């Protein structure tokens, strides 16, 4: 798959109170942005388990995004801080597993930042295009 026609497949875990609403705002404000990001809604960015991230990469994701409320705004007070800590440690381990740090991204998008969500999606997609496919296991689904 040549670079230009390569469409990266991205998975985004969005927190229900800020990022998901922000994405919704982007939609209702008729903002257009790269469709590559497939969204999974979770109650709080703190809910995102590192296993989900690994699972996403395993299933063929070229990039995984976690998006939560700005620090201090979390509906559950501290959920996003936990996400921040896990993101830092997990990105270090992913590098050890051969997965570039850029493929795993953490963003703060509040309910009012529709255009920030748009920008994040476009940027992430372009970056993944440049980086090329992860094809973790030679592009094949894993055996057995």
């Amino acid at each position, binding site marked *: 798959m040549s670079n230009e026609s390569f469409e990266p497949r991205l998975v985004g875990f969005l927190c229900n109170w800020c990022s998901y609403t922000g994405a919704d705002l982007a939609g209702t404000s008729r903002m257009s942005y790269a469709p590559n990001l497939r969204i999974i809604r979770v109650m709080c960015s*703190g809910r995102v*388990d*590192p*296993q989900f*991230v*690994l*699972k996403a*990469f*395993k299933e063929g994701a070229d990039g995984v995004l976690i998006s939560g409320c700005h*620090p201090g705004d979390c509906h559950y007070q*501290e959920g996003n*801080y*936990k996400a*921040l*800590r*896990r993101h*830092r*440690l*997990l990105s*270090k*381990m992913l590098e*050890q*597993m*051969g*997965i570039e740090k850029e493929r795993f991204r953490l963003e703060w998008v509040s309910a009012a930042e529709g255009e920030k969500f748009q920008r994040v999606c476009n940027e992430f997609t372009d970056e993944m295009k440049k980086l090329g496919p*992860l094809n*973790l*296991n*030679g592009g094949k689904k*894993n055996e*057995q």
Partner: protein
Amino acid sequence: MSNDKPKVAFYWCASCGGCEEAVVDLAEDILKVTSAVDIVFWPVALDFKRKDVEAMEDGSIAVSFINGAVRLSEQEEMVKLLRKKSGLVVAFGSCSHLGGIPGLANFWNKQTIFDYAYLKSPSTNNPDKIVPLEKSEVDGKELELPEFYDTVYSLDQVIDVDYYLPGCAPPKDLIVNAVNAILEGKLPPKGAVLSPNKSLCDECDRNESKPEKFTMTEIKRPWEVELDPEKCFLAQGVICMGPATRGGCGQRCITANMPCRGCFGPSDQVFDQGAKFLSAMASIIETNDEKQIDKLIETIVDPAGTFYRFSLPTSILRRKKMEATK
């Protein structure tokens, strides 16, 4: 079946031999085992050959205990053979159950391993760059070696496994219970791990010493701290995989004043022991300030190696992504 005693087979793949010794470790209990069963295949102890197994009828072996991870084609063939020949297959020990220490090779592939082991390692003097080949000719004779896979596989990634006996070297009592359970036929549902499902903290004496709402303010290596024999390792800032590792080992390492490394593997509900422990460890870091977090994570030198010490092959990603890997 010549006599009514059930037939038992032992086999070892990419193994350090520790599990074999664990069987011998049964000491006088071994007599009970030998009297109860008929060991028909035990390459490390008895001189059985492959063709003897091939000669057996399918399913004639009541249970075969296979330890060690699958690294060579020969091992893959043998285990597949034993699967055919046995009623029950039990993954004996961490290597067959999770991939074990040999599994850590999944950070590399055949090429990088051979380069280093036979060419680049400082102690090697191999000007002719002789490297083991699957087919080679020596003194005019043809020599065959099994194929060296790029990735190490746990047993259940190669054949269907009935039960798992965890532990890097399963403890004596666990083996005895398993054998008795099998003999008496009182077995849990297929695929179960023959050890309690609760994590090590449940039986660890040090759990009470945990301070209320404890968090990690700094992380240290075991040799950096004068370990207090009564206090929980995590409370002393040392990484201990106890919370993410199944109990039942009788806290062998804890009583030796060393933190748990997770050899019993995760509990049933956990898909990836390393990731799960990483999540727990990251969550209880004290500070919310980014720079502080990075500084703290700096002190965890090798997260993958530490968290996947025994379970890399059975992790979700299984191996490090390398360019040309099969």
